């Protein structure tokens, strides 16, 4: 047949045009790369094994609780967590008593008194996590003009999720010789542009753990990331457990339906 090879011919043509067009573009990119003496791309993210990975993953309760401790003692000085209530902490295994005590350790606005004056009261489990700053302007003023992002869904809001958060927390280095740092900025291997407005928040022994685990930077970072992942996905365990049951049921249903289909159609075989 005359046009038997229409498609391969067209494809070849397209490939040729693409190659011809791409050559100058590639050359341009090389030049651009050559011009820049600084590194332009962050190294690829470390891939850690998390307790919450995979379809059967759950949150390591002890790790998440240590992570909350870090949030409470370190991160909450700058980062809000507006979507969470203190009562939610039961999700990482804290008892009602512990939650009441944690909530009561902060003062929150308590409406007005009988003179119409605003008053404060100790927090309750039904209160939202207290934010460190009353508004964005105050947060920026205290942080060199940068805004510490709310941490409620931070794990979902960054490409790479938990691995990225871990990388940021452990990615602080001395700036390479010759790199001009903006005032107040720190060098971080994984932050886009390498200059981050957050001073290194965690070092070895930044906190004291009560359960005998050694608070190395690596351990602290893993713990707080476990906590942040839980905070962004408090439904995760229920979701995966429901999912396993739903999938099992659907596999069964698919089998039965397919068998029925075979039976019904079998009378069409002549």
């Amino acid at each position, binding site marked *: *047949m005359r*046009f*038997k090879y*229409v*498609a*391969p011919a*067209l*494809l070849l043509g*397209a490939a040729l*045009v*693409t190659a011809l*067009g*791409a050559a100058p*573009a*590639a050359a*341009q*990119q090389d030049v651009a790369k050559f011009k820049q003496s600084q590194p332009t791309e962050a190294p690829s993210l470390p891939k850690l094994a998390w307790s919450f990975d995979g*379809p059967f993953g759950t949150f390591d309760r002890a790790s998440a609780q240590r992570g909350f401790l870090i949030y409470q003692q370190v991160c909450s000085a700058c980062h809000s967590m*507006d*979507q969470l209530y203190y009562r*939610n902490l039961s999700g990482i295994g804290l008892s009602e008593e512990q939650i009441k005590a944690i909530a009561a350790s902060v003062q929150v606005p308590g409406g007005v008194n009988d003179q119409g004056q605003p008053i404060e009261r100790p927090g309750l489990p039904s209160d939202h996590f207290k934010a460190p700053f009353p508004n964005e302007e105050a947060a920026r003023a205290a942080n060199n003009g940068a805004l510490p*992002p709310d941490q*409620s*869904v931070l794990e*979902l*809001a*960054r*490409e790479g*999720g938990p691995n990225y958060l871990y990388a940021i927390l452990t990615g602080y280095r001395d700036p390479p010789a010759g790199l001009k740092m903006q005032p107040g900025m720190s060098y971080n291997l994984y932050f*886009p542009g390498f200059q981050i407005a957050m001073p290194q928040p965690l070092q070895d022994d930044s906190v004291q753990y009560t359960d005998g685990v050694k608070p190395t930077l690596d351990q602290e970072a893993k713990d707080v990331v476990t906590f942040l992942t839980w905070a*962004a996905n*408090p*439904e995760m365990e*229920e*979701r*995966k457990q*429901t*999912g*396993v049951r*739903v*999938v099992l049921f*659907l*596999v069964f*249903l*698919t089998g039965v*339906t*397919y068998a*029925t*289909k075979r039976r*019904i*159609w079998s009378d*069409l*075989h*002549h």
Partner: protein
Amino acid sequence: MVGLYKSDFKNPVVNWIDTRMPVFTLMQKEYAAFPTPKNFNYFWNFGALAMVNLMIMIATGVFLAMNYTPNVAMAFNSIEHIMRDVNWGWLIRYAHMNGASMFFIVVYIHTFRGLYYGSYKAPRELLWMLGVVILLLMMATAFMGYVLPWGQMSYWGATVITNLFSAIPLVGPSIVTWLWGGFSVDNATLNRFYSLHYLLPFVIVGVVFFHVIALHITGSNNPLGIDVKSPQDTIPFHPYYTIKDSVGICVYLLVFAALVFFSPNFFASPDNYIPANPLQTPAEIVPEWYFLPFYAILRSVPNKLGGVMMMFGSIMVLFVLPWLDTSPVRSARFRPIYRQVFWLLVIAVLALGAVGAHRPQGIWVVIGRVATLYYFLHFLVILPILGKLERPLPLPESISRPVIRGGGPMPGGAPAKPMEKP
């Protein structure tokens, strides 16, 4: 015609209703006894799947709407409220969010099925055009739904897409202001998008109804693309295709469930978990995956108005496809050349999808232009000419002939396999 209907139903209640309003007879005729070609492959499941998906979207959407707040200050938080505080809210929200992606997967496969087997050709032109209307409405609905959570991508996606209309000469900027209900994407925009996002799915239901009416007048196409010649070629829709569609629905639900329960943010952009901020443009504004090929066409044209016209043109061309394809043979099985260019079209569309996800730099610009060019060449040049030049393979006499020869009632699982070697 006025008068009671003479119903055949035995059950007295059913009979009583049917006599006064013969909906049971209608269902019996259109969905039970309805004569259907006996040789469908599993690609014929996707219409039923789209119907199921539409119902899932409406059901989950109605429950979302009970807890969602369409206000720029509260929308983002109300989604988190649904995720955290509403009973099963995470399930409803993730099902709706991933349901949109599933819907496009299903409808794109449904559409390409039509392209492969020539389902758009006479006498099914109107049926096909109604399908294109549904696709357009789905796109509008999904675009406006994506704005509702009021994340960074919601806001900036809405800004970029509505701004496209500013390319229209003279009236463009006024149209954009009119769409926004102000001088930027803001609360007024969110409110109207919410209203329309609630309305359009029901318009889709209406168009689907007409789509099905048209289908039941012409009857279904089939993998051989030849007309039904005798009752021997058909089987009643029930139980044969109700059960076969059920198999498809089970598999579809399995895929859907895997997404919702184990990887609910697979298709989601992390940026949409950052609340909308009009003062901070994200590093990259990327639409949802199902718009990427069109976004790539838009960016492949150096001129803004040209790009917008090509983007809309890429769908408009589907409306006139029944008249662009000049071949009288429907199924690609019997069109050796069309079969090849069909796959080229698939490659071009997939390539455009990849291009849409990357910055318009270097090689991606070139691939984008080549694929865009091919997309339009395919419909506007190749199909009209091909129908005249191509020598189709001999068509089977009837549907039942090759079916009997094949030994089984249907070439199940192995769709799109050529019956004869060229």
